Structures are given as structure tokens and as C-alpha cells.
């Protein structure tokens, strides 16, 4: 059981005295504090001679009470005197929390800052693109500064280590498309067209698109979090002071790795999806596995392959740029790293899908339909 500090009021000769009993420490004054605040009578003295042990919180409460009511503190032990002096000298009425507006004001303020941030964001992302181009150019002039090891390491992280998950995802997508497509096409007696459906849609669209989304989730977020944390711990500043450009050392290898690996991953994803479709063809439609694959070769035009391969590096660039850009924007605290990482992934996926729509119209217009 916890022992609480308590008080009684004693009146003698027109003098009211608050007498405190029990320990005056942080663990026991939870009840006493609001009670003392509630006293509105005039009090001439506060007696703490019967109180138990005292710490700075207890001393503070006594001090504040005597200050508010003008009561004299009596019966303070030597230790209590020291603590009372200490808290008295440390008295302050400054704000404890930074200024935070009321709800209505906060909403308008928030909308305003969002708009300003958006405008600033457009500008600084263009600036970031410019900085990347400058770094590329300076690497072209001084190719020996190029960090091959970092590039290879990032290619491993972005590409090789994501093979299992992208393979599994693509295989399942191939199964779903073939199975759902076959059900619909059977109604027209055209189930053999499932081959066209699976082959073309994965090569043209889904292989690269789903891969880009997966890479945004796996690597784009990692870029933002790594670079963001390095900014917080001043590693990036340290790099700059020793003449290492963070653009060259961190950003370029990541962007190049994503641009180089995306076409490979996208093609790999398309192939696995077709294999998934072929499995369903074998099981559900009675098209032998190898026949399915052979038919894919006949019905998928070569330009479908090129459509995918043109889009892939662009998507890679967008994902990596969003990750690195958001990472470089981190400042202040740990929460910011999380926010920026989320922003990197959301922006990357959004832009990839928007661009994909443009590409679809574009390729159809030039006759690669």
C-alpha cells in the first residue's frame, strides 16, 4: 500500500496553519497537490515538521503553496531548507510544450503549410533532378570517382535479393489472370485465347508495373530510411566536410542500380507470370505446359517486349529518385524519417501508375497496339 501525504488545518489565535503529515515525495503527493490548490481560505503558515522524507517535488509543492497564499513555511528540517532554496531558485513560468494551435487554427495552418510545402516540393525535386544530372556529368568527367562497389552492392540489394519475392508474386498473378480469364473466355468458347491474354498483358503491363510497385515498397523505402537516418546522425554533413559528395556516394549508385535492375526484374517477372499461366492452362484448360509456352512465342509480338523494357528503367528511376529525394529532405527527428519513408513509397507508386497510363496511350498511338 502506498502512503499518501495529507494535511489538516489548525486555527489558533486567528492564525490558520496547514499541517502536513506523511512523506512529501513524488510517489505520495498525487492527492495532496490538488487539495492544496483547492484551499482558498487565508492561511498564515504551513507546518512541515511532521512530514516524513522530502524530495524536490514535495519541496516544490510546499514552496508553491506558500508563494500563492503568502503562508510562512515553518518546521522545515535542514534538508528541506536546502531543497526549498533549490526549487525557489529554479522557479520558472516558461512554456513546457511548443506552441500548438487550437483545432480550427491548426487545420487552416496545416492546409497552408501543405500548399507551401507542395510548391516548395516541386521546386526542390526539380533541383534534386538537376543535382543528379550535375553529379552524373561530373562522374563522366572524372570516371575514377565512380563507386563501382557501392553500385554492385545496391544492385544486389535491389535486384538479386528481391528475386524470390518478385518471383512468387508474379507466379501468383499469372495464375490469377489465367484462371479468371479462362472462366470468362470459356463462355465464348475462346479459352485458347487465354494464352494471348496472359502473354501480352504480363509482357506489356503487369510484369513491369507490379515489379515497380514491389521495388518501391522494398528498395524505395529503404533508400529513404537509410539516407534519412544518415542525415539525422550528421553522417551526410560529415561526408561533405571531407569532400565526399553524398550525391556521388549515396544517390547515384542507388539510382543507377534501380535503373539497371528494373528491366531485368520486369522481364523476369513477366516470364514467371507466363509460367504461372501455363500451369493453369495445363491443369484447367488441357493445354499442355510446353504447348502453352510455344503459343506465347507466336502470339506475343516482339514490340510487347520492348514496351515493357522501355518503361522499366523509367519506373526504376522514379522509384529510386523518390526514395533518395525524400531521404535527403529529412531533418529534425525520428518521426520525420517515418513520414518521409511513407511519402517516398506513396509518391513512387502514384507516379509510376500515372506514367504507365501515359505510356499505354503513347504506345497505342504509335501503332504498338
Amino acid at each position, binding site marked *: 500500500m502506498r502512503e499518501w501525504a495529507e494535511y489538516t488545518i489548525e486555527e489558533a489565535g486567528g492564525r490558520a496553519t496547514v499541517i502536513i503529515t506523511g512523506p512529501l515525495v513524488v510517489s505520495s503527493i498525487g492527492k495532496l497537490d490538488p487539495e492544496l490548490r483547492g484551499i482558498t481560505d487565508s492561511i498564515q503558515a504551513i507546518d512541515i515538521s511532521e512530514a516524513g522524507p522530502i524530495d524536490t517535488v514535495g519541496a516544490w509543492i510546499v514552496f508553491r503553496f506558500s508563494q500563492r497564499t503568502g503562508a510562512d513555511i515553518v518546521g522545515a528540517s535542514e534538508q528541506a531548507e536546502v531543497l526549498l532554496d533549490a526549487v525557489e531558485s529554479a522557479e520558472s513560468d516558461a512554456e513546457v510544450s511548443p506552441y500548438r494551435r487550437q483545432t480550427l487554427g491548426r487545420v487552416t495552418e496545416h492546409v497552408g503549410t501543405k500548399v507551401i510545402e507542395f510548391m516548395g516540393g516541386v521546386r526542390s525535386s526539380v533541383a534534386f533532378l538537376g543535382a543528379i544530372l550535375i553529379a552524373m556529368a561530373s562522374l563522366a568527367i572524372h570516371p575514377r570517382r565512380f563507386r563501382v562497389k557501392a553500385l554492385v552492392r545496391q544492385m544486389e540489394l535491389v535486384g538479386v535479393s528481391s528475386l524470390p519475392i518478385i518471383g512468387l508474386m508474379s507466379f501468383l498473378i499469372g495464375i490469377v489472370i489465367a484462371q479468371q480469364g479462362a472462366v470468362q473466355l470459356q463462355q465464348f468458347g475462346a479459352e485458347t485465347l487465354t494464352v494471348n491474354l496472359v502473354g501480352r498483358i504480363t509482357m506489356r503491363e503487369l510484369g513491369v508495373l507490379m515489379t515497380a510497385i514491389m521495388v518501391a515498397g522494398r528498395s524505395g523505402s529503404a533508400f529513404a530510411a537509410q539516407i534519412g537516418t544518415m542525415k539525422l546522425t550528421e553522417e551526410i554533413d560529415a561526408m561533405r566536410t571531407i569532400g565526399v559528395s553524398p550525391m556521388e556516394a549515396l544517390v547515384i549508385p542507388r539510382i543507377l542500380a534501380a535503373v539497371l535492375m528494373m528491366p531485368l526484374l520486369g522481364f523476369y517477372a513477366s516470364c514467371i507470370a507466363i509460367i504461372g499461366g501455363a500451369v493453369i492452362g495445363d491443369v484447367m484448360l488441357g493445354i499442355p505446359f510446353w504447348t502453352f509456352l510455344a503459343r506465347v512465342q507466336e502470339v506475343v509480338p516482339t514490340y510487347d517486349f520492348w514496351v515493357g523494357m522501355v518503361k522499366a528503367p523509367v519506373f526504376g528511376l522514379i522509384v529510386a529518385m523518390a526514395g533518395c529525394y525524400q531521404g535527403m529532405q529529412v531533418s529534425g*527527428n525520428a518521426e520525420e524519417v517515418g513520414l518521409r519513408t511513407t511519402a517516398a513509397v506513396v509518391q513512387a507508386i502514384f507516379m509510376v501508375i500515372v506514367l504507365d497510363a501515359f505510356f499505354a496511350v503513347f504506345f497505342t498511338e504509335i501503332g504498338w497496339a
Partner: protein
Amino acid sequence: MSEEETDFPIRIRGLTNAFGDFVVHEDLDLDVRRGEILGVVGGSGTGKSVLMRSIIGLQPPVKGDIEVFGHNITQAEPDEVIGVRNRWGVLFQGGALFSTLSVGENVQVPLKQFYPELKQQLLDEISRYKVVLTGLPEDAAAKFPSELSGGMRKRAGLARALALDPELLFLDEPTAGLDPIGGAKFDQLTRELTDTLGLTVFLITHDLDTLYAICDRVAVLADKKVIAVGTIPELLEHDHPWIQEYFNGPRARAASATHERGKALDKHGSEKA
């Protein structure tokens, strides 16, 4: 309540700490007496911070026993030992403030955690005077850690460590990075709090002035062990080469001289009065 009466809030027996094959401590013993300021010194990388982390239960040792207030820390989970946690305060070497909270709110975190009955108004008042008590300017209370200087972060960390008026205080290099005047005030504050609140302080430091000015005893960490514990005059008798070099180096002599001069001045002043 028998554990309350132990004269050694911290008791370490046969402690071995290792990271993989790299052994930091081997068969280390140490007792910290109630009410003393124990300075812990040793070269960089001798495992002072690791020792502190194992005492507060963050670094599970390979072998050995650690008792804090009579509770065995080594057999408890890191998040357990609640009975002990509100009786100590810890200042980490890097400050370790919560970056999304202002300094004042940082101080309130342990208070809210252990004493939910405290009213917000009182919490605000407590965090205010704690912030000022540790020598920060008033307006620092509303600032975020990222808006403070390195030395100010140290002080804010101390304010949070002192939030609960703990009986046992762990300080990892509290005066590193403080200006000399601030450092001296910090020392004085630690001494005062120890004397008035009966604190026990485990103080890791490289600051010789701090050692001379406020430590009751000094423990020397070297060769994976505590090679000596005692008052500075006792340690001066010790013939371990590192101790000799440490206390007889030019910096140590300067600190010692300052200390002597300070004492002489004090005496002079009090005689006059």
C-alpha cells in the same frame, strides 16, 4: 523491506560481458556504497558504458550476478524489474532524448509512467523547475532536442534522469561537452543533490576536475576488471602503470592543484566570515 537497508545499492560479482568473441569484462567485481558518488574511470573503450548498461539491465551478461537494491537484474527481462526502475535515473552518453517531444515533455515521460495520478498542471511545474535546476535557460523547456546544442542536450538528459528524484543516478560522462563554468556548476549540483537527497551516483567520467571535486571514491577499469577502488589519495599509492599515468599526468596535477587552491580559498573565506 530488508533490501532497503542494504548498504550497497549496487553489487556486482563475477561479471563477464562479451560481444561474440570480444570479451569486454571478465570476472569483474564492484560494490557501490549507499550515499556515495562513485567515479568510474578508464581508457576509452575499456567498457565503462557497457558496465553501466549491464547494471541497468540492458546488456545481458555472459556470466555473473548483478544486484540493484537487492534485486537480481541479470535474471530479469529487460522490460521487467518495475520495482527498481522508478528508483533510478539514467543519463546516457548520447543524451537519448525522445526526439519527437520537447525537453519539458521529455521530463514528464517518467513521471507520467510511474505516477499517473499527478495532474498536468503539477507535471508542467515540475518539468519547469527541473529544467532550470539543471542549468538550462527557461525557454529551453519548450524546445525540441534537435534545436539544442550538444551541452544543452546533456543537461536536458540530466533533467529527465532526475525527474523522479531517484535514489540511484547513473551518469555517463555528464560534463563532457560542457563549458568549464557549466561543468563546475553541474558538479556542484550533483554534489548538492547527493547530499540533500541521499543519492547514490554512478558517475562515468574523463573529467579530472569532476573526480577531484565531487567523487567520494573512484573505481578504475582496466584489463577487463575493476583494478582498484578507493579515494584518490589511496589510488595514488597504487602502482598499476595506468593509474600512475592517469593521476600523475600533467592534466591530473593541474586539476589537483586547482582543487587544493579551491579548498584553501574556502577555508580563507569561512575564517573571515
